[in-house]
């Protein structure tokens, strides 16, 4: 089964609130999907022969959500997640496409590995899976991987995510070289000398808990470095999971200067601070760490004004055994695919921090533009990737019910309002919420 194949019967999504910032649409309309593509959008569209009609009254119909930053763990760590389970978890969270980070074992640093991820993603038949390739061979930070070959095989960008590129000279080469292929260079900004293997944010909470802290400066220094090298080369730098006030500020200034930069905000850095680590809660251990309230507010402000272009979950599944350890020993990361939409809708949209179209822009349109992916729009003729959300659906986060193999979430037990009820990829439904929900 190829999820990019035709959708079989035409699908008419009738009477929903269609929110498509790419066309400036926010209105109650019908959307017709046919042959895997968007066939039309308008008021009172007729029902074509054989079409399947979904009544969307009271629901939000939007271009499919795209997550530029997920860890699907395959190959090498299939006990945490597989491409199959990750792609279905994505669909259940309303995502129609995800970008798989290459820090697997072995790392995705050659065209064969890219092909493996792509093929496994297609076999999964859920959200589309776009691989990223490594910047450096084996993510060692020494010499460039075969970027051209990997892009030809289907990689949509390069990154050594998980390992920052510490050698500024290598970052320069990557940004210059990637320009040939028009792909972004995504970087995990962290100066390892300053972060010194810290377990959480440096500050009062870390001091009280007796845990090694990572200062904001460890991220700020690296963000500034990346921005300067991007400016030098004219390359496109994509800064991952920005968590600091000065980091947001530096990106805002760089954009004003015309530097080609896009940047991510994660749901957890938008909603949590380092206080979530109290009690040595390993489900709040992540990298970059949860920071101070001032940083969280700056990330929210950057997300509001678009300095941080996209929402990315940094979905990082870990087996419960691995998180069931002393804080120092537990790995970094949380799952995010199945909570992101509900969290944003509940805590940013329903509270008036951002408008619904802004959420769709950050979760669909901007990610598609940033990585030059199909989708992010409901324009006629584009792939029929659509997410339908019930904005009134009330639910409680229960990690053990996730389709993901892992349930390491700091949001366990949170009451949310709004979730995906239908996820359509290539005109075909890949996720439908049970009618009881």
């Amino acid at each position, binding site marked *: 089964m190829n999820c990019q194949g035709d959708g079989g019967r035409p699908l008419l999504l009738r009477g929903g609130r269609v929110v498509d910032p790419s066309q400036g649409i926010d209105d109650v309309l019908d959307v017709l999907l046919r042959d895997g593509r968007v066939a039309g959008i308008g008021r009172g569209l007729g029902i074509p022969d054989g079409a399947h009609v979904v009544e969307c009254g009271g629901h939000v119909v939007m271009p499919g959500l795209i997550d530029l930053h997920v860890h699907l763990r395959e190959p090498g760590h299939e006990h945490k997640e597989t491409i199959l389970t990750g792609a279905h978890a994505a669909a259940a969270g309303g995502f129609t496409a995800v970008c798989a980070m290459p820090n697997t074992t072995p790392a995705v640093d050659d065209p064969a590995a890219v092909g493996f991820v792509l093929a496994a993603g297609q076999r999964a038949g859920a959200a589309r899976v776009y691989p990223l390739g490594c910047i450096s061979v084996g993510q060692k930070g020494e010499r460039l991987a075969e970027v051209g070959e990997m892009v030809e095989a289907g990689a949509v960008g390069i990154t050594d995510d998980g390992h920052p590129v510490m050698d500024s000279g290598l970052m320069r080469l990557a940004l210059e070289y990637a320009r040939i292929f028009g792909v972004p260079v995504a970087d995990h900004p962290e100066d390892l000398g300053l972060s010194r293997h810290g377990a959480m944010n*440096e*500050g*009062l909470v*870390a*001091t*009280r*808990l*007796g*845990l*090694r*802290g990572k*200062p904001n400066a460890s991220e700020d220094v690296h963000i500034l470095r990346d921005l300067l090298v991007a400016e030098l080369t004219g390359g496109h730098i994509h800064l991952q999971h920005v968590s600091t006030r000065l980091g947001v500020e530096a990106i805002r200034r760089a954009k004003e200067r015309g530097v080609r930069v896009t940047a991510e905000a994660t749901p957890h850095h938008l909603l949590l601070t380092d206080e979530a680590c109290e*009690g*040595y809660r390993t489900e709040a251990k992540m990298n970059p760490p949860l920071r101070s309230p001032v940083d969280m507010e700056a990330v929210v402000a950057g997300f509001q004004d678009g300095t941080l272009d996209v929402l990315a979950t940094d979905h990082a599944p870990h087996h419960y*055994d691995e998180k*069931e*350890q*002393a*804080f*120092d*020993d537990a790995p970094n990361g949380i799952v995010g695919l199945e909570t992101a939409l509900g969290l944003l809708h509940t805590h940013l949209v329903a509270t008036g921090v951002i408008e619904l179209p802004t959420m769709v822009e950050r979760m669909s349109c901007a990610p598609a533009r940033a990585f030059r992916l199909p989708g992010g729009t409901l324009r006629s003729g584009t792939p029929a990737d659509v997410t339908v959300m019930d904005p009134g659906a009330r639910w409680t986060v229960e990690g053990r019910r996730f389709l993901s193999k892992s349930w390491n979430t700091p949001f366990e037990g949170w009451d949310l309002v709004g979730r995906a009820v239908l996820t359509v990829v290539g005109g075909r439904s890949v996720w439908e919420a049970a009618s009881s929900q």
Partner: protein
Amino acid sequence: MNWLASGLGKDLIGLEPLSADQIHTILDTAEPFKEISERRIKKVPVLRGKTIVNLFFEPSTRTRISFEFAEKRLSADTVNIQTVGSSVVKGETLVDTARNLEAMRIDMVVIRHGSSGAARFLAERIPSNVINGGDGWHEHPTQGLLDLLTIRDRLGKIEGVRVCIVGDILHSRVARSNIYGLVKLGAEVAVCGPPTLLPVGIEQLGVRVIPRLEEAIEWAHVLNVLRLQLERMESGFVPSLREYNRLYGVSSARLGRVPRELLILHPGPMNRGVEIDSDVADGPHSVILNQVTNGVAVRMAVLYLLAGGAPERAESAKAGAEA
């Protein structure tokens, strides 16, 4: 399970969560237990039939022996587990160790572990009483308590006493437990050490930072001198032990200028000639061996209280009644 009688709760994880009243209760309970160690037959049946495991994931001589004496003098059955030779080195997780202990129906665990939070981790997963014997850089509550008891013995009070903790505050669980305990009991607390070894935000715990040792000596009634681990030099926090001694080593030459009484505490083991000179360690200001003696009494008090002993009955428990 009648540990509520003591008002301490199930476990002793740190001094941060305790109230001043709870800390006073432990110190007061330690007083009658001091005398047991002075007897010819150093044993009372307070914990007869109780099983206690001393679970040490880090090398320790002093703390482990102090706990073991406290346990044995209260007639508990004790087992020592050191990481070397235990299943821990074979890769067994802390969770599995905890479950196995639980399955053997032990009453209490004293845990020493290199990771901050390990004692709390264990306490949340087993019904036995858990006593933190030192977890990472977090807390070492019985050390904090024995320091408080030693200061109270010598100065008759803790409120208003000026205590300066000298040395590697960043990596020190002793410093944190001291700060929490001293601040709660109304002492004035300062820390003194190279800025590379002071944790961020330490002032927010209610302490002042005194950069130079000379000023600290002028200010303080008590200096609690911390051990400088050799690996701090290897990882570059201080350039050399020699220079550390010149800047932060407590010597009689430095103390000589202070006419009034000054107590010198050290949690041990000492690096003579690094953070403390021998003439100070062995001199008239030093109460270092009193600390060791008080350590056994404080640990007896904690064991007794967590086992359900009532503070007001400690005197009669000492005379032979069971908890």
